[in-house]
């Protein structure tokens, strides 16, 4: 089911198989009017050690839920998540806590993701001590070093979150993720709330840290240009599923799925001649009522009868280029 590669097999650090995450909306009592939101609906992919896998999609496509399900912040409904061969979905709470030393997350909201009542030094030190990263006596100097690594001053140790700007807070979030020396970091819209000039600083920082610490990123974003900048491989999500996955060069040069092609044509660009624009009709269907057949057929400008009836398989169309479309 997974890609066979000719070159020496890179080591898979994370492997997600048939992952599902459903939410129940209880409406009536005793199950009356019960509805299911299929936020993540059968997703499989893997991440190689040392690479950045970008996950791109519009709001509500399930990309953030998927990120949280991988970290077991939300229990997946079904499927498996293998991290370095360990099945995460079967772990008990205590074991998951230990695992957090290896997998970390950077959140989107630089204002909400920091506790307003604790100094950043205390916060970071608590994490370092919980996971016994260094000796308790050394943890303060370790944290101060950490702050410098993410481009902040040592003296910020005793400051509270509200004393920082959005960009600085995102640096603190990164320091928090980095504190335990993880192997994999899930970045969930980590730069989306920032202005472009600050966004560029944070993206550069993330790239630098990746090199310095041999990190692997799962980078979730709605912004194609950001995804293109950071990723080695890219997966495109639509309505709870991955519809296309390939290496960055391949996917942006030769997009196969009409959805990605529409996305690419829809981004307004600076200093570009007017392009042929594919404007998608309508809106993303609700994940409660997922269309029959291909999920994208309600908006696809090329949809045929087949698309309304048959679910397209997510298959390898070219070497290492996967897509779920009958006509790609």
């Amino acid at each position: 089911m997974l890609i066979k590669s000719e070159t020496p097999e890179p080591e898979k650090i994370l492997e997600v198989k048939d992952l599902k995450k459903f939410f129940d909306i209880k409406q009536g009592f005793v199950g009356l009017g019960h509805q299911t939101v299929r936020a993540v609906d059968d997703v499989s992919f893997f991440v190689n050690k040392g690479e950045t896998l970008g996950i791109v999609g519009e709001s509500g496509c399930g990309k953030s839920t998927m990120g949280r399900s991988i970290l077991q912040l939300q229990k997946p409904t079904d499927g498996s998540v293998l991290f370095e061969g360990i099945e995460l979905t079967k772990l008990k709470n205590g074991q998951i806590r230990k695992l957090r030393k290896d997998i970390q997350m950077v959140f989107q909201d630089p204002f909400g993701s920091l506790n307003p009542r604790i100094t950043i030094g205390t916060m970071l030190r608590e994490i370092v001590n919980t996971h016994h990263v260094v000796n308790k006596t050394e943890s303060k100097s370790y944290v101060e070093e950490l702050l410098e690594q993410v481009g902040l001053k040592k003296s910020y140790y005793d400051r509270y979150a509200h004393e920082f700007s959005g960009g600085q807070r995102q640096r603190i979030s990164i320091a928090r993720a980095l504190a335990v020396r993880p192997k994999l970091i899930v970045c969930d819209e980590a730069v989306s709330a920032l202005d472009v000039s600050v966004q560029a600083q944070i993206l550069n920082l993330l790239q630098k840290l990746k090199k310095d610490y041999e990190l692997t990123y799962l980078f979730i974003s709605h912004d194609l240009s950001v995804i293109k900048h950071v990723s080695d491989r890219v997966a495109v999500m639509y309505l709870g599923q991955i519809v296309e996955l390939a290496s960055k060069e391949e996917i942006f040069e030769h997009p196969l799925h009409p959805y990605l092609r529409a996305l690419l044509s829809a981004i307004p660009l600076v200093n570009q001649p007017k392009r042929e624009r594919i404007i998608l009709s309508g809106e993303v269907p609700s994940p409660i009522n997922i269309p029959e057949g291909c999920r994208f057929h309600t908006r696809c400008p090329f949809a045929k009868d087949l698309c309304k009836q048959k679910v397209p398989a997510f298959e390898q169309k070219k070497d290492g280029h996967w897509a779920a479309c009958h006509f790609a």
Partner: protein
Amino acid sequence: MGEPQLQSETVNRVQINPLRKKRNKSYSKLMKNKLAVCGGIFVVLLVVLAVFAPLLAPFDPTKQNYGQILKPPSATHWFGTDTLGRDLLSRIIFGAQVSLKAGLISVGIALTIGIPLGMISGYFRGFWDEFIIMRVTDAMLAFPSLVLALTLAAVLGPSLNHAMIAIGLVFTPYFIRLARGEVLAQREREYVSAARASGLRNFSIMMRHVFPNILGPLIVQATLNVASAIIAEASLSYLGLGTQPPTPSWGAMLAEGQGYISQAPWISIFPGLFIFLAVISINVFGDGIHDWLDPKLK
């Protein structure tokens, strides 16, 4: 589900807002601050009265003096005397002890039971929260609190201690609700997710991360409830189910005076005035704390 909240004017507004708030603060906020300070001063005064009652009271509050029955306010008896010739001022000073004690202990009971239950319920959710804690508090809140306190006090037997227990129990569901609601709100905030993602223990997240963030509203509510508890104790005593004679209690004094309202109005007016002043100053003080905590949080 964390949707990408795009940049720009949300942040812009955040920057404009403080200015806007400060502007509005200027007159009415300053006024309110002054009120809060006045409230605080009166609260301190009450505490001093209560603590140093034996030193401050000019007479023995329980000593009857049949020569001085129903005397109107005068230089010796500032607030007059009651039906048994006891000095009203002294009784009011000692009454402060009862009121403050009742207010603090009953709220203390409610806090000790309510906050842990509410926090655990809100943090872990699930069956216990949804079906036991929530529904039971719903049911408890359906009873008029005064009626419930009356009944409890009656069943336990009339005394100040029982009245305090009754009031404390009656107030408990409010704290369960409040603590639970606040924890739920905090749980939605990303820093809690972040703390979980950092691998911290649930207990440590609750105590070190969530609790400090819900403390503000709890303090405010507790302060305001001290005021309500003072009224509740006075009401119970007024109806004869709280403090028992001869211990001076503002509510009981009022009840005694009611029958003499036409010939000796001071007997009921002064204790009532003190209940009112105590309650309003605690309320103002609580509001002050609320306003003081608020802008920092938001």
